[in-house]
């Protein structure tokens, strides 16, 4: 794990402005799932459109980082950039775009869930590496018990109980941070 992974958003932004490439890599790593989820879950863009939005959002982040007024407000800034680019993508395809940036109820619900999911992911980063790894493999990479067991070299019969224990720790982490 990069030493930049433990930095706050504000610290990360400052390092990116100083041209530290590892900091930029970490910023992309930290927010890539978020931008991707907004595009494909919140706005249901096709893979092709989502890729255009994804690359464009990170280009804008990189070229406009100096215009961010509050370094700790990176996440809402990225969310806003991504939503606007998604709306542009929908408009360019002739799909109906909610007026004045007002999103339809269903899209709003999905975007709210993406925000909630990001909070869960932040809490996940407070867990031991082994817990982060097994939960990520099972829930977001769809790996089977067997694949996880083979790759981590642990008995497959213990996977379910390890996942349950890590979920319990995640709950505790969330309760302590709220």
């Amino acid at each position: 794990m990069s030493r930049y992974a433990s930095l706050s958003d504000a610290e990360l932004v400052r390092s990116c402005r100083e041209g530290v490439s590892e900091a930029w890599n970490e910023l992309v790593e930290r927010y890539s799932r978020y931008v991707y989820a907004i595009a494909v879950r919140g706005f249901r863009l096709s893979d092709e459109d989502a890729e255009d939005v994804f690359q464009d959002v990170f280009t804008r982040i990189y070229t406009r980082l100096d215009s961010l007024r509050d370094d700790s407000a990176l996440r809402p800034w990225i969310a806003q950039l991504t939503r606007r680019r998604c709306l542009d993508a929908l408009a360019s395809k002739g799909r109906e775009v909610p007026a004045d940036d007002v999103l339809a109820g269903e899209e709003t619900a999905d975007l709210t869930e993406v925000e909630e999911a990001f909070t869960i992911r932040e809490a996940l980063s407070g867990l031991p590496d082994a817990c982060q790894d097994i939960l990520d493999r099972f829930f977001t990479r769809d790996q089977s018990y067997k694949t996880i067991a083979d790759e981590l070299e642990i008995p497959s019969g213990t996977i379910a109980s390890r996942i349950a224990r890590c979920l319990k720790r995640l709950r505790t982490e969330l309760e302590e941070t709220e």
Partner: protein
Amino acid sequence: MTRLYDEERLGVLLRLLRPAPMGWVRAAQELPDARRTFDEIVARAEADLAFRKALIADLEQALSAEGYEPDRRILDEIRERLSES
């Protein structure tokens, strides 16, 4: 207010943030290099009339002849910059 999550709900939310395709992430991480290439090409085009004319005539071939391998996004930006000036 503290929100309580059961394991099922945590699983649903964890599944929402799936990894973006690796190629997309890598391309985004390589942006600083791509921007440096873009700046270098634009600076050369501004200083070297022959290079600029070659870019306007056939952008991809001119860049390839000079050893550049910029991605599509950079090509689009250079095209846009050349058409502005």
